[in-house]
């Protein structure tokens, strides 16, 4: 133990010596240290100090432009390969946990939206949930799905040079690859080219009822949790048909968190996007992501996770024994994938809290994704996430976060850049982070 402690103390001595520079030292030392901090937090330290980008960063800092120096790092392929990629992997599940995630079409799409793409493709936060495109790696002139790369090829990818391909593909119920209709395209949410790819589509549409899919969309985009948006004024008609209305906890009145508050008034309501994903998407171990244009009753996940019971749930005859687990008053999910956020969330203040400026009603996941990209909250949540990565011990006020978010929000009163790199540069150069 003594040897271990003495070794550690030696290691500390080295780092202390390097940075115990007196404030009267020439500015270039301090500028270099600040540039190192920016580089390590924005690129993870993957930017070599021998790269001219780093030299330019230090020079910018010395000239008093710390945000400009941070922008140099954020605009580099090293940001794309580290932080953009990390943020993308986090977005494949509602826990926003990158651990265990792998590169796939969904992460490639997000990286392209964060870092730009080949041919001058611009970054775009607002189209994360709606752009009808697929991004591939240029492998010796051949556009290749990123999940097809081996470890050596992956290590060599320039993540700022992904190739855009119009449209998204999916499998139909006969395992045939078809274009996903534009109405149902959800940007990165609906990208998956193979089974077990750890994509968001896999997370949301595997087995179950696809409630995970719509809840995951709201949670990963806004940072809100289920109880944040629950509403006691929900209607029983808006509760999915497979929720048992006769359960004593279904309605409010017992002082308990009632089922209806979330299932009728929250993220899981048939009205709040569930209809856009419930019955048309599935993800299987054998075939991957599937689009079902005309699901039969026993294929409709909005009628429960048990395919053998879906006909009973659809009928919902509470007289028959054994009693079917169902809600006879549910209007069910709309066959045209309609959604209406205003019916409950406007009155409960959720839309206001989200800074919702887009459409409040529509049909299909794509329209919902477009509207989501126009809400203020998605930019604020991205700012909070970047803070957590780049400056976890920093001190940011609510107005700081709002200001930084607005600088990237194209729908703000002064249109922002729609570019997460703006957020990264402003966060990294914040006074509390230096």
């Amino acid at each position, binding site marked *: 133990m003594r040897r271990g402690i003495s070794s550690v103390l030696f290691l500390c001595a080295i780092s202390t010596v390097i940075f115990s520079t007196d404030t009267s030292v020439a500015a270039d030392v301090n500028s270099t240290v600040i540039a190192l901090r920016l580089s390590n*937090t924005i690129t993870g330290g993957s930017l070599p100090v021998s790269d001219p980008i780093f030299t330019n960063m230090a020079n910018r800092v010395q000239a008093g432009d710390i945000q400009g120096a941070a922008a140099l790092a954020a605009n580099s392929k090293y940001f794309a390969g580290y932080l953009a990629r990390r943020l993308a992997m986090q977005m494949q599940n509602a826990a926003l946990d990158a651990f265990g995630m792998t590169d796939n079409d969904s992460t490639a799409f997000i990286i392209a939206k964060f870092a730009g793409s080949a041919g001058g493709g611009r970054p775009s936060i607002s189209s994360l949930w709606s752009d009808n495109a697929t991004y591939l790696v240029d492998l010796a002139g051949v556009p290749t799905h990123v999940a097809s790369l081996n470890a050596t090829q992956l290590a060599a990818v320039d993540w700022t040079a992904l190739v855009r391909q119009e449209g998204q593909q999916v499998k139909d119920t006969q395992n045939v690859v078809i274009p996903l209709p534009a109405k149902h395209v959800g940007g990165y949410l609906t990208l998956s080219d193979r089974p077990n790819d750890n994509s968001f589509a896999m997370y949301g549409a595997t087995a179950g009822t696809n409630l995970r899919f719509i809840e995951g969309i709201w949670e990963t985009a806004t940072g809100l949790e289920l109880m944040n948006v629950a509403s006691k004024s929900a209607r029983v008609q808006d509760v999915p048909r497979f929720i048992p209305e006769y359960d004593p906890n279904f309605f409010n009145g017992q002082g308990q968190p009632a089922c209806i508050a979330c299932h009728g008034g929250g993220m899981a309501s048939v009205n709040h996007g569930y209809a856009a994903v419930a019955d048309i998407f599935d993800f299987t171990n054998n075939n991957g992501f599937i689009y079902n244009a005309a699901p039969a009753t026993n294929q409709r996940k909005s009628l429960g996770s048990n395919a053998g019971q879906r006909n009973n749930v659809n009928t919902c005859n509470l007289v028959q024994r054994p009693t079917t687990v169902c809600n006879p008053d549910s209007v069910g999910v709309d066959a045209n994938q309609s959604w209406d956020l205003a019916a409950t969330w406007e009155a409960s203040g959720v839309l206001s809290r989200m800074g919702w400026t887009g459409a409040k009603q529509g049909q299909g996941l794509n329209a919902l994704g477009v509207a989501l990209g126009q809400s203020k909250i998605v930019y604020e949540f991205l700012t909070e996430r970047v803070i957590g990565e780049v400056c976890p011990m920093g001190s940011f006020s609510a107005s700081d976060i709002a200001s930084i978010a607005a600088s990237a929000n194209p729908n703000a009163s002064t249109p922002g850049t729609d570019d997460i790199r703006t957020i990264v540069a402003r966060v990294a150069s914040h006074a509390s982070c230096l």
Partner: protein
Amino acid sequence: MKNLKLAKLMCLALPMAIATGCSMDQASNLAGLMRNNNNNQGGGAVVGNGATVSGTGALSVPTANAAIARIQNGLEGSVNPMAGNFQRSLAQVRTNLPKVSDPTQASGYDQVQLLVYGACSDLTTGNTPIMQSRYGVTANGTIAANTTALVNAGMRMMDQYTAGLASASPATDAARAAFQSLVSRVGATATNTSRIAFMSVCIAANTAGSTLLGF
């Protein structure tokens, strides 16, 4: 001054972590105490995760992928995480490496040193090991004869992490003296070889560079 505070924070945190065999949880408690002592800066501040934190700078830890990239850069691309002992050690410790950059929540920080160990050992193998071809440390020579090269190797590695500040700043003499002291202590044991001395220098420099700068 901020940089000195950061470096001292790390020096306080790591000995505690190693002495108790604990992860960064204990060190994070220390960080939390210091945070409270330094509080009252911008009261009401809200960080992204909802916690009220008054930071004293961008103290952060490298996540797994960051640590790997830093070590590669520190050793100037001489090691490959998909080959050799670097790969083997990564396979063993990868799941334990820090998953977040927040030092109050990260664990496995100490595992990075094991990664460094694996990477450094890749520089000592072969008929003409990289420790010799790149760093000038003759594998079969004595520690005494290799002292200058060993110290220079350490300085060169630290330069990769500090953008040259190790060898071109007012702290240069002190940094060099630190490596000199390490080499002398290792050399004082007669049975230690130049490979062992190089490993000591390499582990010290790359652990410090990749994890102990405070960001």
